[in-house]
């Protein structure tokens, strides 16, 4: 009797169980559970580009603090950081692990144009949302338009253009030279400077480039000096900036200097240039390190509490600025979190402020960062704000 009844009972039980669980499985979103959202980030923790690795650790600090405050809608952020050594093939392998093994909802930051380009399409195919992707201002993240990518770094083209405009309009400097790194970053800076010069009927008096690994910039300095430039705009990495300033000082070349937000770590630059950084005009997309804005005060307290051994440098806390809009998107998306609800929520941000300039995203424009401010480095290493937040992208 029992044997006879067992088969139909088992069938009924299995059917009921299947029907109960199937809708849940169908609705399950990769990287989202009742208690967690999984977010990944790749970043160079070792190798030649390890300087930028602190960006990813800064994001880690932000998520730690956020989780201790209770997370978002009852979910904690499970943050997974992987070292890609700034090598695109490694980044690609990690992306596969993120999506196919761990199952992430989205990525944040992931510094580097090369590494980012290696995984952009893969993430898009797998509907991975990418916030502050590439942590850089190249146009690769917004051209062509990609609804999964939210760019939060001012475009280098516009930043360079704005800086040239500042030199021309505020300081009346017309003889401008450019020193740039020979890659996408440097070339897009050059493009911005040249576009403004062309608009005003001017021409750069010299444009000098250097390869990333070069360590002797003496002939570059001589070329800049012989151009008779009143001002030099620099789109380079910290080492090159220090070497060039030193070489120029040696040969007695003292132009006005201006540079991009990538060199906004004033204390570091003052130290490695032995004070030559004083007078530099910098554009900034994020609050200064000693800002008294309530958010900066709160993050500095988190830094002291969780990671006091990390240096509070601009690369480090920019990792916080990149993660902030992600958290806001998660908040606005509510408890029903899918890539679609997240994207729609992000597209409601209008002049939204964290510690960076105002962000705005719409359904047709995901270049959120359009503002910078200008400041000048003082002899004691502090910064004197020259302008308020200025819109540089139309």
């Amino acid at each position, binding site marked *: 009797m029992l044997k006879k009844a067992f088969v139909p009972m088992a069938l009924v039980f299995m059917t009921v169980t299947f029907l109960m669980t199937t809708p849940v499985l169908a609705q399950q979103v990769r990287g989202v559970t009742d208690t967690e959202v999984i977010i990944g980030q790749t970043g160079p923790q*070792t*190798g*030649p*580009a*390890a*300087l930028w*690795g602190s960006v990813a650790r800064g994001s880690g600090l932000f998520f730690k603090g956020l989780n201790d405050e209770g997370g978002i809608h009852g979910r904690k952020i499970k943050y997974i950081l992987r070292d890609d050594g700034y090598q695109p093939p490694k980044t690609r392998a990690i992306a596969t692990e993120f999506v196919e093994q761990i199952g992430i909802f989205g990525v944040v930051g992931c510094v580097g144009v090369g590494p980012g380009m290696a995984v952009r399409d893969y993430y898009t195919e797998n509907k991975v949302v990418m916030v502050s992707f590439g942590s850089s201002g190249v146009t690769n993240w917004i051209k062509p338009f990609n609804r999964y990518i939210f760019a939060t770094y001012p475009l280098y083209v516009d930043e360079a253009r704005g800086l040239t405009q500042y030199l021309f309009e505020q300081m009346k400097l017309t003889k401008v030279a450019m020193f740039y790194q*020979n890659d996408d970053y440097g070339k897009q800076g050059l493009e911005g400077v040249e576009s403004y010069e062309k608009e005003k009927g001017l021409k750069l008096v010299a444009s*000098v*480039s*250097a*390869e990333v*690994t*070069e*360590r*002797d910039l*003496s*002939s*570059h300095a*001589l*070329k800049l000096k*012989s151009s008779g430039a009143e001002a030099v705009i620099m789109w380079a990495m*910290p*080492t090159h900036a*220090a*070497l060039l300033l*030193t070489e120029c*000082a*040696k*040969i*007695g070349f003292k132009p006005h200097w201006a540079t991009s937000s990538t060199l906004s770590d004033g204390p*570091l630059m003052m*130290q*490695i*240039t*032995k004070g*030559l950084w004083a007078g530099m005009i910098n554009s900034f997309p994020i609050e200064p390190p000693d800002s008294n804005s309530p958010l900066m005060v709160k993050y500095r307290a988190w830094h002291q509490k969780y990671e006091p051994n990390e*240096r509070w*440098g601009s690369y480090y806390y920019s990792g916080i600025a990149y993660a902030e809009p992600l958290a806001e998107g998660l908040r606005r998306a509510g408890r029903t979190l899918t890539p679609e609800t997240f994207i729609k929520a992000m597209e409601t941000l209008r002049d939204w402020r964290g510690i960076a300039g105002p962000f705005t995203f719409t359904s047709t424009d995901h270049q959120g960062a359009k503002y910078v401010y200008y400041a000048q480095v003082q002899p004691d290493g502090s910064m004197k704000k020259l302008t308020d937040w200025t819109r540089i992208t139309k």
Partner: protein
Amino acid sequence: MLGQLIVSGLAVGACYSLLALAMVIIYKTSDVLNFAQGEMAMVSTFIAFTLMESYHVPFQWAVILTFLFAILLGAFFELVFLRQAKEPTVLGLIIITLGFEMILMGFAGWKWGPDQRSLEFPISNIQTYNFFGLVMSKINFWTIVISLVLMLILFLFFRYTKVGIAMRATQQNQLAARVMGIRTKWILSFTWAISSMVGAVAGMLIAALGVLDPTMMMDPLLKGFASAVLGGMTSLPGTAVGGAMLGIIENLFGGYVSLAFKSIVAFAVIVLMLCIRPSGLLAKHYVKKV
């Protein structure tokens, strides 16, 4: 501009010479190209930095302690890594140096982090000497002097001292040298120690000229290698000539031809020299009898 380009070329060439010198010392004794030379110098320089920055050791003592560290590092590498290689070939030993390079790079990244630092140095990198209207920073001038003096000391050492002659004998035929009573293993350790110390001198000067970070020796090492190939891999005076020539060629190329392609000049020099005169400008062509 021509004169200034040449003077600046000479100055940067002196740094290349120092690294070339460190490479040549090892090559002369063991036929091995040491790809860890740059990273050994970098780690030694970080030791100097830590002594001065964290322990407030006066500069001269920091330099002496750094030299001591560099000597121990060189001897340690030979003793612990190279000597343990089973039936070593030159290629195998070169690969070990590559492995050691990666270990040191990883260690430096872990210990000191990737941030750029400034090495305190008593000679200014910005104040200059003026020679008939041509300027050279004080540290550049003293780098040239130091590289020439070191080259001369090592030249005399190899030529006229018993240990120096034993080092040359070890390179030419290790077995014969051993039969003649030379303690070849000791000689090899000594060679690596001396080379590491010369590298440390180069590292400290290069850091003082620019910035100190774990990647600081990547470019200078390549240029040092090109200088050694240009001057001759077995010639000590060749390192000075090679370094100076490479520095000047690079600067003239950057000044008058193209700055964008300046960084490939060193590669072109290596290729050209290996095609035209593989032994280099000042080394004798040396053929081993089979």
